């Protein structure tokens, strides 16, 4: 299955390894930041709604 990369095996594999790690890194970072920001905003919106209901009640 693995192609014979000959004397350039290290070159090709390191290029793929580093690139895939960088791509995975930006995807994971973006997803983690998105989830964290969604949670923080939901908490802040809930605090705001709670404060508004407190004023009315």
């Amino acid at each position, binding site marked *: *299955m*693995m*192609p*014979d*990369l*000959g*004397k*350039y*095996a290290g*070159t*090709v594999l*390191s*290029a*793929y390894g*580093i*690139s895939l790690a*960088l*791509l995975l*890194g*930006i*995807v994971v*970072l*973006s*997803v983690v*930041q*998105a989830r964290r*920001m*969604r949670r*923080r*905003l939901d908490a*802040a*919106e809930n*605090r*705001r709604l709670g*404060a508004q209901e407190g004023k009315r009640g």
Partner: protein
Amino acid sequence: MSIWEYANPVKFIATSDKVLPWVAGLAALALAGGLIWGFFFTPEDYRQGSTVKIFYLHVPAAMMAINAWAMMLVASLIWIVRRHHVSALAAKAAAPVGVTFTLIALVTGAIWGQPMWGTWWAWDPRLTSFLILFLFYLGYMALWQAIENPDTAADLTAVLCLVGSVFAILSRYAVNFWNQGLHQGASLSMDAEENVADVFWYPALVAIVGFVLLFVALVLLRTQTEIRRRRLHTLEMRERMG
């Protein structure tokens, strides 16, 4: 219906929420398809040997490094002219993705260059303008972080984006302008005579589609994050004042 409807943050988030899973799924399919096809099922080049397999990463990453800056330029111009916050936030969201593609292009270029040119790096016009573009990306992101007022940050980063566009253009056309250096001209061309052989071209095309879709998916997701960050900032300011 007008495109400017999406300048409304609520509308943008609602629409991008629907589109995002599809774009992300297609990006994963195209990226995996292009890279697996290129790595496992294409022949060696008669001169470059198996290093030609780096082509499927290097070329799409380099293309998207420049195109990401072009997208940031358009979004920045929209911010300057029409003052739509979503466009400024989309430009901000695209920068970390663009810098990742630029880094991939630089690193894979160096790794490929070592056995082919006998050096990791040369102060060649295209390589140098690409390095400057990378530094512009870092400067652009640092400027957003350095300025607390989001509108002022959007204004100043938009100007920086306009200036950096010179290097985005040079990164693409430096070989044609100076006609010197180690880096060859464009490998991909609409002219069948100049384009790479079909056996390399088709998997590269699939990988390019994958990179484009990945960029779109990440920018949509990160723009949503930036819109929420802005809203959170407003709510926290109100909490402090109230």
